[in-house]
């Protein structure tokens, strides 16, 4: 095992490593050049701070305040809001509709993350073994999918799943002889609505995850795998015992990002509802906040739901942030 560790070090060249080589004495060379200067750094971050305080900080404070108030359309036009303290939260937490939305969001995000991660891992493993030409081909295909804006992707998939003229119904009927898919409405049934939404989300998410995992896979030392193979480890054993442990940190971070992104999914659901879903049966948290506040004009309850969503997401992202801070040795 010691030889493995020695091999690992030079396998990771980077600008930072190079810097370290030229800086005898070790320690934290990149800090050496930093000045403990007085005023300058504060002046440099001031513009960013001002914008973030105005557009993120202040609205965040307002959001929390509003969530404790009765705040409807009348208040938007100037009527003073009533303080209702925790009433909005109590209403939300006793509302079966909210639990429906929450459960739907968690299930949908969970399923999307699971499928995305399994597919991405398989594709990453596949990329390693593909001949160069085919690897290029698949890379280009995934890049195109990744580059598609979420809104246009949703609309295009919506068109492909179209009831009357969609290519998917056409293929199912004419190529696979499944006559029951003639004029099949994919978006009316909530379950099949979420299946379509899931396909759109996964299709857009797999390229990023697969590329990142592939980058991680290329760092698994070939010697160790060879040794394991000589010792008689089969393909799955090699993956479980060698490849995955190497991959784990990257795998965890990608999974966390997928969880965060899928929990706050908005565009795909919202646009798909425009194309043909039943809103009340297909709302997820993000869309529900929009429906309650902007469309429904109930900013108090909308605010409470928004705060709950934000807290949920922040709690989940603590792990991600800690991981990033650890890796970045700030």
């Amino acid at each position, binding site marked *: 095992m010691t030889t493995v560790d020695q091999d690992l070090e030079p396998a990771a060249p980077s600008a930072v490593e190079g810097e370290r080589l030229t800086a005898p004495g070790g320690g934290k060379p990149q800090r050496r050049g930093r000045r403990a200067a007085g005023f300058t750094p504060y002046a440099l971050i001031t513009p960013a701070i001002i914008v973030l305080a105005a557009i993120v900080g202040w609205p965040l404070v307002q959001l929390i305040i509003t969530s404790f108030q009765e705040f409807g359309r009348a208040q938007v036009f100037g009527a003073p809001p009533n303080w209702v303290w925790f009433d909005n939260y109590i209403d939300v937490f006793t509302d079966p509709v909210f639990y429906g939305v929450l459960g739907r969001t968690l299930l949908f995000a969970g399923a999307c993350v699971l499928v995305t991660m399994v597919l991405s891992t398989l594709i990453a493993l596949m990329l390693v073994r593909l001949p160069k030409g085919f690897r290029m081909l698949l890379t280009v295909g995934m890049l195109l999918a990744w580059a598609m804006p979420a809104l246009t992707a949703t*609309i295009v998939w919506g068109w492909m799943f179209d009831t009357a003229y969609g290519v998917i119904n056409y293929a199912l009927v004419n190529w696979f002889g499944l006559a029951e898919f003639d004029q099949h409405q994919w978006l009316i049934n909530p379950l099949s609505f979420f299946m379509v939404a899931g396909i759109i989300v996964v299709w857009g998410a797999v390229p990023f995850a697969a590329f990142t995992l592939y980058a991680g896979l290329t760092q698994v030392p070939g010697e160790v795998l060879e040794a394991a193979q000589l010792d008689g480890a089969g393909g799955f054993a090699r993956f479980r015992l060698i490849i995955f442990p190497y991959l784990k940190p990257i795998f965890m971070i990608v999974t966390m990002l997928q969880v965060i992104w899928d929990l706050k999914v908005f565009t795909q659901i919202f646009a798909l509802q425009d194309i043909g879903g039943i809103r009340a049966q297909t709302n997820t948290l993000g869309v529900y906040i929009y429906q309650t506040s902007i469309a429904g004009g109930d900013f108090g309850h909308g605010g409470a739901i928004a705060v709950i969503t934000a807290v949920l997401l922040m709690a989940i992202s603590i792990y991600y942030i800690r991981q990033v801070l650890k890796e970045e040795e700030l």
Partner: protein
Amino acid sequence: MSAAVTPTTRAVTAPGSLDRARRGGGRRRVTTWLLSALSVVLFVLFVFPVYWMVNTSFQPNNDVRGSEVHFFPDNFTLRNYETVIFDPGRTPFLPAAANSLVVTLLTVIIALVFAFLASVAVTRFRFKSRRAFILTILVIQMIPGEAMIVSVFRVVDGWQLLNTIAGLTIVYIATVLPFTIWTLRGFVNGVPVELEEAAMIDGCSRAGAFWRVTFPLLAPGLIATGVFGFIQAWNEFIMALVLNARPEMMTLPVWLRTFLVANGTTNWAGIMAGSTLMAIPVIVFFLIVQGRMTSGLVSGAVKG
């Protein structure tokens, strides 16, 4: 030159060390052929929606709504683009495209300047609240935009900036800024301080050394970060939907959504032409900088 990781570039330049361990054997060859075939299938699955969008956009609506599905634009036409671009309907395309372009460019330029200053502060200086600032940048990125729409709407309304370019631009700057600072920080970090120090020994002032030595080396990083900002702002949908709802102030995504709702399922050819027009700048820009896309998100994790 930078510590940023470019996984997809590496896909081309550095074949994984894994396949070295796996070469040889007749069964291997069969597996390789099966995998190659599978990769073609996957390629089709990933590309088909993009192809279908472009394909539909070049067909007359009669073909699109016919009983036969056309897998190629046999009756090639540019009519859809003509109608979409020049149709002076209730929500015209050209003003929306202009709004998108202005807001996006302003956002990118201002955000880059602000982020550049901030990233220099956190990489080249040590100061008291430095860690707190970086932590804030990270945490802000986790707040869901949907949760903030209402209060951002009210703040912008309070400034009388609803349905204006300025209002949306300020909001977008704040949206893009955390990610931009984080990414640029990585690029500035990638330029060794020793280079600046060498220039200072040769007689440069500290600012002069930074400006003459580090800044030119940052150009690729600035361009890549700028393009990310461009894509983010160009695609942004929720804020634009709420803040600039008036037809003449819409951006392209909101215009596309309005066009979709107004035309319903009657004019898919036109909708696909609109989608193509919105997607093309993003796809082009994305392909230019794709290699650096992941660096900001997983930098550190994929160090190498």
